[in-house]
Structure formats: C-alpha cells, structure tokens
C-alpha cells in the first residue's frame, strides 16, 4: 500500500462527485434538490482544482477554488431568492411547473 495519495484517485473522486451531482440535477423535480446537486457539482470541480494545486505545488489552484466558492455563494443567494419567489407564485417547488419557455 502506497504511503502517498495517488493523484488519479483524487481526480476520480472529483469525477464521481461531479457525476452524482449531475444525476441529482437530472432526476430531481424539487428545485431545492436541484440547487443542492449543483452545489455538489461545483464542489467537485473545486476539488479537482485543489488536487491539481497539490500536484504542482502551486497556490493558483486554491485561488481558483476560492473563486468557485464565491461563485457558489452568489449563485445560492440568487437561486434561493428565486425559489422563494417561485414558491410564492406557484405554491410549489416543482420545476416542471416552470415550463412557459416551451417553444
């Protein structure tokens, strides 16, 4: 058993988390769950950056993670605001109700 973490396993973890988040986004009808799954996906991509930073010994990857973190915070704020507004209007969190964009 190697004493150090193999980098491909770190990236694999990021990939798996990303795919799990994607499954969540694609399957859930409750918009809160969709938003949560999106958080997972963002987090997974952040993880990939950290792994890369660790691989090269640079701090730049962590900077990228910080950016993603900021983005996620802003996104969640706006997303939750939208959810509240949606719940007020339609009294549901079912995203299939929001299908007025149908062509």
């Amino acid at each position, binding site marked *: 058993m190697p004493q150090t973490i193999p980098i491909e396993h770190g990236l694999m973890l990021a990939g798996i988390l990303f795919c799990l988040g994607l499954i969540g986004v694609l399957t859930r009808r409750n918009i809160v769950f969709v938003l949560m799954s999106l958080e997972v996906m963002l987090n997974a991509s952040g993880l990939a950056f950290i792994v890369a930073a660790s691989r090269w010994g640079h701090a730049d990857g*962590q900077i990228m993670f910080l950016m993603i973190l900021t983005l996620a915070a802003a996104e969640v704020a706006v997303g939750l605001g939208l959810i*509240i507004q949606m719940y007020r209007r339609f009294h549901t969190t079912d995203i299939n109700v929001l299908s007025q964009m149908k062509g």
Partner: protein
Amino acid sequence: MIILFYLAAAIAIISTVCMVLQNNIVHGLIYLILSLLAVAIVFFLLGAPFAAVLEAIVYAGAIMVLFLFVMMMLNMGQHSVDQERSWMGGRVFIAPAIMSGLLLAQFLNVLRDYEFELVPTEIGVMQVSSLLFGPYVLAVELASILLLAGLVSAYHLAKK
C-alpha cells in the same frame, strides 16, 4: 493518512448518493453537509488547509445555513416528503444514469494511464493570500462585485 483519504472519499460519495436519493429536504441537506465536510478533510489531506477551512466555514457553514433558513421559510412538511416519493420512480433515473455513467467512464478512461504519486506539500494561508492580493487582486475585486450583485439581487428577488 492514505487510509483517511479513502475513508473521507467513501463518506463523501455515500453521503452524496444518500442526498440525491433522499425524500426529505432537511435530511438531504444534512447529507450534503456531511459530504462537504468529508471533502474538506480531503482538502486537508491534499495539503490545502486554508481551502479546507473555507470549505467548512463557507460551504458547510454559511451556504448550508442559508438553505436551512429557506427551508424553514417555505415550511414544507410531510406533504412534500410524500410528494417527493411520488416523483422518485426508477424510470426517471434511466437517462441520467446512462449519461452520467458514460461521462464517468470517459473521465476514468482519461485518468487510466495517469499515475503520479502525490507528495503533499502544504500550501498555507501565506502563499495563497500573497497570490490573492498580488497578481489576482483584480479577480478578488470582481469576486466582491459578484457577491454584491448576488446580495442585491437576492434581496430584490425575495422581496414580497
């Protein structure tokens, strides 16, 4: 240390799966927090303590609390759990599972020939912040503007 990594990874994956399959929103949220904390441990193990701390504070702390507050505002009870259950059939998983499976297979395929033993070197707050307020200062400013915009729009959207 290596065992800790695999353990944390396993916890992250399992809790995420539970989150995706969960019918109760609040339970799902707890699983998500668990998953994020597990990832924070991975960060720590990868030699990024600053990122790990931020993950715990901002993600698992602030953002998830925000979620919880919203859940409390929406006040969805047993009714919503039943509704979730009715929405979650086996059928809805087919296409996403195939899609995600293919994507994962591709990722793994890319990583297959890639072997590199990582010797974690700790990159501390000093290094990160000197970079942040050095060459990346413009990005920091932009991030602050983004957060401000998020704040204003969230306030505006949630208004009655």
